[in-house]
């Protein structure tokens, strides 16, 4: 009895072969092409997964659909158009440039330009301020007089004096 049980247990690895992924098509070239295409398409159920990697039921169905259309000899672009007609641009990870996506495509550049403009404006403003603060002759004399008058007081405040 014990040996029988042992034999049965040894058979376990054999059973584990049973569940081969059923998704793999007979034609590996076509499968590769399908995966290549599906990697750039979004699964609508798990939206952060591509159609190629998603395990959602719908993704499986759509992969089957793509496979069948490839077998019919349809071009990649035709298949993409087929999916976009049903699910919208949302299935594309690379959205086309059109009216609704203009902000998406060019917004960041517009923001960059705006940022540069603000930066230049601020820097120009600051330049003006600095020039206004130029010492006049009288100011320089006054400053020198002050510095000479109380060198110890300034030192005790630990202010570095470039002249001493």
């Amino acid at each position, binding site marked *: 009895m014990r040996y029988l049980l042992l034999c049965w247990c040894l058979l376990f690895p054999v059973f584990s072969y049973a569940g081969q992924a059923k998704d793999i098509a007979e034609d590996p070239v076509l499968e590769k092409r399908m995966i290549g295409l599906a990697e750039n398409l979004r699964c*609508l*159920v798990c*939206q952060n997964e591509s159609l190629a990697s998603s395990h959602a*039921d*719908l993704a499986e*169905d*759509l992969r089957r*659909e793509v496979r069948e259309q490839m077998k019919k000899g349809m071009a990649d672009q035709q298949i993409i158009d087929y999916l*976009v*007609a*049903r*699910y*919208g*641009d*949302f299935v594309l990870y690379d959205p086309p440039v059109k009216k609704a996506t203009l902000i998406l495509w060019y917004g960041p550049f517009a923001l960059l330009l705006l940022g540069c403009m603000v930066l230049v404006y601020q820097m120009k403003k600051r330049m003006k301020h600095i020039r206004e603060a130029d010492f006049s002759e009288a100011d320089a004399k006054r400053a020198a007089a002050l510095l000479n008058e109380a060198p110890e007081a300034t030192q005790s405040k630990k202010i570095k004096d470039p002249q001493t």
Partner: protein
Amino acid sequence: MMRFILPFVVFVVLSAFLYVGLGLNPHEVPSPLIGKPAPAFNLPQLQEPAKQFSPQDMKGKVWMLNVWASWCAACKDEHHVLLALARQNIVPIYGMDYKDKREDGMAVLRDTGDPYTLVVSDTEGRIGIDYGVYGVPETYVIDKQGVIKYKQIGGVSQQIMNEKILPMIKELQSK
């Protein structure tokens, strides 16, 4: 003063964008099918598989197509809304039993009531793909010319029914 006002304005604008943006449901993907003719199909009826149904048969009528399944939890939530609508007899509701076993679909209708004029079964979900179905339940309003006018993704609540779907159906019927 400007140095306070400007950042404040930027903050308010940004908050407004975030408020609207975060309030949107990312699972509601706008359907490209709205305004397009409802895709044609020929599917066996759930109750009598020998008979077929095609949207062609509905020309000249405003109708609703509700995609559901026995395995779908949200479908159970909207079921009473559909039942209430069916009792009012305003619009025919056609059901599409999506990727479901025939017996399971029939059991749901037998146990919880049947709001549908007729149900077709899309066992393999192929017609569902043509209609851009990606999460049942989904409900379509189709006008007299056979054009899809509205798509509800997810369950129909009584509020959506009263505020969006019913006014639209009445408007389409008067055309």
